[in-house]
């Protein structure tokens, strides 16, 4: 039975920049996928594009591509699928083409777009309310502050691009799992309603989309990882019938524990994992051990995809800043709480939201895990959020004074005033698939 090998070398923008190079070198891959877009990455890219029409994509990809060129010379059939295009896949593709030309490589690049709904938002809004999936509110309440609105496209335009001879497919927003489903559809020619196979490929895509997280990263039994320097990246050998094995190019590999932790990562109902391509049933899959670092996954079931795309919208929501000071000595927690309260009061401002935390004293689960008694060293972290930028700026000026005018044992003020950041709030919504037109353009 025909199998294809798909590996993922990047789980988010900011992930390790050597991992994709190593994976391409060692993985003997047919397809390398690179995933760059977290929920709010698009809002950052939208602002970059606003400032410079030639920007708005994940720039890390171009660095990676430049370093991949010697490998592409040696592996003429290696194909790359990435959502690095972000808000500007066309600009990203043109830059990628320059890099390939400079290396005297002939590769066909395809651009997948159509996910960006911002230019059409006002035309769509009367009939499509983009109601917030969590609160039910209508988008009109925040419309003037919206900076990005992108539908999660599926695997079909990726498969179409490959069918048109693309070697490198650069997309905007697509569902992470679809980066894997696309090449599978192209290679095996599955029907668009072959729900069980689409589900199987979606399980494979979901497992590898976060890179090292399925092959040692975050593993609860981390003591068994022998070498953290080269943790490895995952790949699947996906068969025509939808079954696959999963392993990695280095590190501890994939075992039942690392696999199941990632299978349920960021999942709601595991029997109904929604993608643009299929509703995948994660509770249907069977797992079997192949060897110490390889697992086999089979018998996935799927049901028909829904008739809507998920839309990720970001809107401007005021300003935030967050700063830290280290508090040492006896009664460190009491002194930190006192200093945090004083800091906020000294600003003379009332903030819409504020928070005082003692890192080291249970701040990751406030109120759930009690701090150890008698701590003699904690990090004080104070954060605010407010519509008024000047109030937040005022706040950032109250950290340094505590070094001389706070309780004894205050230190760690070396990096200057905390930065004021604009907040982009997240607005999840749905839109009917019929109003979104995915497009594929192959560069000449």
């Amino acid at each position, binding site marked *: 039975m025909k199998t294809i090998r798909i590996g993922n070398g990047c789980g988010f923008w900011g992930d390790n920049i050597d991992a994709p190079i190593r994976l391409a070198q060692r993985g003997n891959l047919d397809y390398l996928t690179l995933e760059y877009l977290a929920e709010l990455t698009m809002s950052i890219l939208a602002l970059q594009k606003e400032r410079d029409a030639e920007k708005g994509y994940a720039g890390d990809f171009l660095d990676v591509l430049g370093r991949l060129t010697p490998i592409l010379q040696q592996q003429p059939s290696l194909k790359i699928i990435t959502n690095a295009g972000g808000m500007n896949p066309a600009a990203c593709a043109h830059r990628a083409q320059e890099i390939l030309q400079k290396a005297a490589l002939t590769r066909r690049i395809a651009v997948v777009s159509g996910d960006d709904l911002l230019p059409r938002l006002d035309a769509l809004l009367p009939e499509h309310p983009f109601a917030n999936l969590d609160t039910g509110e209508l988008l009109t309440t925040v419309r003037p502050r919206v900076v990005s609105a992108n539908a999660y496209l599926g695997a079909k335009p990726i498969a179409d691009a490959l069918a048109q001879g693309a070697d490198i497919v650069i997309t905007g927003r697509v569902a992470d799992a679809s980066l894997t489903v696309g090449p599978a559809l192209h290679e095996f020619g599955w029907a668009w309603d072959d729900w069980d196979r689409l589900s199987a490929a979606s399980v494979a895509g979901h497992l590898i989309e976060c890179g090292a997280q399925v092959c040692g990263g975050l593993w609860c039994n981390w003591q068994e990882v022998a070498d953290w320097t080269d943790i490895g990246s995952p790949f699947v050998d996906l068969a025509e019938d939808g079954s696959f094995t999963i392993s990695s190019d280095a590190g501890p590999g994939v*075992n039942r524990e690392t696999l199941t*932790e990632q299978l349920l990562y*960021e*999942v709601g109902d595991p029997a109904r994992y929604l993608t643009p391509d299929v509703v995948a049933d994660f509770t249907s899959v069977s797992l079997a051990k192949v060897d110490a670092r390889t697992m086999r996954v089979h018998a996935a079931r799927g049901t028909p995809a829904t008739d809507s795309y998920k839309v990720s919208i970001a809107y401007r929501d005021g300003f935030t800043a967050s700063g830290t000071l280290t508090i040492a000595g006896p009664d460190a927690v009491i002194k930190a709480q006192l200093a945090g309260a004083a800091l906020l009061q000294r600003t003379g401002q009332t903030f819409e939201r504020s928070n005082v*935390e003692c890192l080291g004293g249970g701040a990751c*689960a406030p109120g759930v895990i009690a701090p150890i008694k008698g701590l003699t060293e904690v990090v004080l972290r104070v954060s605010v959020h407010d519509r008024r930028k000047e109030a937040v700026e005022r706040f950032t000026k109250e950290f340094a004074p505590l070094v001389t005018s706070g309780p004894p044992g205050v230190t760690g003020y070396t990096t200057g005033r905390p930065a004021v950041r604009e907040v982009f709030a997240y607005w999840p919504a749905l839109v009917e698939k019929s109003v979104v037109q995915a497009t594929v353009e192959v560069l000449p």
Partner: protein
Amino acid sequence: MKLFLNLGSLAHGRSGDKGNHANIAVIAYTQAGYDWLRGYLTAERVAQYFAPMFVGHVSNVPSPQTGTLETCPTKVVRYEAPNVWGLNFLLYDILAGGASRSLRIDTQGKTLALTLLRMDIDAPPNFADMLRDKEKPS
């Protein structure tokens, strides 16, 4: 004699964010452990354990200015994945704003699974059959 055990001796797990919600997967090391956890680790028990963290979109401490603490109802839904001995909990509005707006250090709930695995449990009589070394990961 009372035995003191925590959830982490019977199960492993992982947590992550979905907007302002978090999910925590708790995965038993053994079939026996899964069978027992299905009865013991209810959505209500998890909601009660994390109750102090359900504070709407504001902070986890009372505002120094107003002295008030905004709260929101605790809503936890449990899903079962018997094929992987997994229980998946969806904790609604636990992230105080989520990745974009939360003022907490753990904006995305990355550490919630480890916090849940620290939960003290009333050890069942056959707990020895549920420990990890009874069934090495295959």
